[in-house]
């Protein structure tokens, strides 16, 4: 909301391959400071690959990834996390045999130990349930609870730029609404966000801007309000 036009995250001319398969094709995406941007697209359109490219889990063959203006294309993942990036991954990817508390601690892996207490307090304030369940093994929690752990874990690092891969997947409608409220809330505290979603309506309703991906190409982009009205958006989905 408080988007003030300074780019926090930039993808410029990104081409990412898996082996010989060309996945992302000349992708350009910008997320400004404090902005909430959603990345839409059908299955296998390259949304998760985009996030992995941003994190450095896969390297683009050509193109540039910038964080707060700095070229990080060649930097390892840990260095990007240190610069304020965090992710709520697809399928949550919690550390199942570890407790909720330990999962959160892993989220703050690169934070100085001295800050840990404050981070925990912040996250517990947002998700009081996680405090109650701190000794429960993450793998034994329900889907909705796991989603909270995944969110809390990502927030433990005090990110400036948060990536979310289908945060509403597998949640009951009431929980979807609730999780988008939290996303909105976190965004309003100044965190830039790139949210991957298949659920275009809900995500566009809280986003500032959006991009639509189809077979690795950005086929549509614009203000969320405009995209919501857009006829082509439906077409883009149908043409996946």
């Amino acid at each position, binding site marked *: 909301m408080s988007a003030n036009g300074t780019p926090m995250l930039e993808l410029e001319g990104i081409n990412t391959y898996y082996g010989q398969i060309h996945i992302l094709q000349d992708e350009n995406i910008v997320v400004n400071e404090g902005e909430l941007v959603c990345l839409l697209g059908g299955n296998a359109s390259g949304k998760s690959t985009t996030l992995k490219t941003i*994190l450095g*889990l896969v390297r683009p063959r050509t193109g540039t990834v910038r964080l707060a203006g700095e070229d990080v294309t060649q930097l*390892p*993942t*840990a260095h990007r*996390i*240190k610069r304020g990036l965090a*992710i709520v*991954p697809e*399928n*949550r*990817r*919690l*550390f*199942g*045999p*570890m407790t909720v508390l*330990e999962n959160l*601690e*892993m*989220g703050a*892996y*690169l934070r100085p*130990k001295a800050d840990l207490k404050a981070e925990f307090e912040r996250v517990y304030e947002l998700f009081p349930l996680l405090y109650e369940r701190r000794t429960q*093994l993450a*793998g*034994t*929690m329900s*889907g909705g609870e*796991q989603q909270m752990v995944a969110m809390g*874990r990502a927030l433990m*690092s005090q990110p400036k730029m948060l990536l979310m891969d289908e945060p509403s997947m*597998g949640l009951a409608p009431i929980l979807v609404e609730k999780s988008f409220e939290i996303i909105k809330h976190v965004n309003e505290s100044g965190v830039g966000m790139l949210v991957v979603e298949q659920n275009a309506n809900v995500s566009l309703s809280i986003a500032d801007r959006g991009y639509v991906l189809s077979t690795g190409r950005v086929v549509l982009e614009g203000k969320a309000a405009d995209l919501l009205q857009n006829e082509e958006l439906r077409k883009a989905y149908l043409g996946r």
Partner: protein
Amino acid sequence: MDTFIQLTLNGLTLGSVYALIALGYSLVYGILKLLNFAHGDVFMVGTFIGFGAIQLLGGTVNPIVPVWTLLILITLAAMAGCAVLGVVIERFAYRPLRDAPRIAPLISALGVSFFIAYSMQLLFGSELRNYDTFSLDGGALYLEGFDIGNVRVPMIRIITIVSAFVMMILLWLLVSRTRVGKAMRATSFDREAAAMMGIDIDKVIVFAFVLGSALAGAAGVLFALRIPTYATIGFLIGLKGFTAAVIGGIGSIPGAMAGGLVLGFAESYAQGYISTRWSDLLVFVILILFLVFRPQGILGKADIRKV
């Protein structure tokens, strides 16, 4: 009854050494899903470093340092030397094959194993090396101790058992309490998710090799305090450590500890009640039975990974 106590004591001594070795297999397997066949040879190198260190310290008849200092120094030397060896093996034999098909690092592991064993044989010959700990303080380590019934529990066994357990407890604390230990557990559960947290996977892997190899070094010294060693001993002992890890559920740390003890007892009772000639065979029968019927080990549980 005395026989039983004696065999139990033997099993405990043997088992605590197997447990230390099994931990190295499990630590590495947990993170890399790699059977580090060279691990037994790292153990062997540990036994030799201990032997060399004793000679440097003046031998056991007339050591230049007090007995306890000598024992601690040779253990630390073996741990440090093996840790370095473990790092070198990881760096040159496994890391270049990180993204290769899984069979490649396995073959590399076998190659490293033979390379170490036969290099040592070439350098130091194939004869038995005896620490001769009986000469320390005129046999004090064997004569002192306490009795259970009519069975003497000599100091030398107490040293082995207590040190092994202390190391296992320290490792357990490290893995369950410290940040790097938790990062190891996170990495072994889901490597990519761990990377997403900013955990440096390469460092975690090196750390696993350092820990596992240092424990193998310690196990080498504790073993060779009482039993002569030789250049190719790593094959047999490594296979036993591996069997212990499989019994406990490979990749599991408490499993490795439990598996080591179970195997130690099984081997010792088999030696006492059946025959010494069959005890090694028993180990392999156990290994095969577990691999076929219960590959997840005794402590293996259903996968609690959800979604």
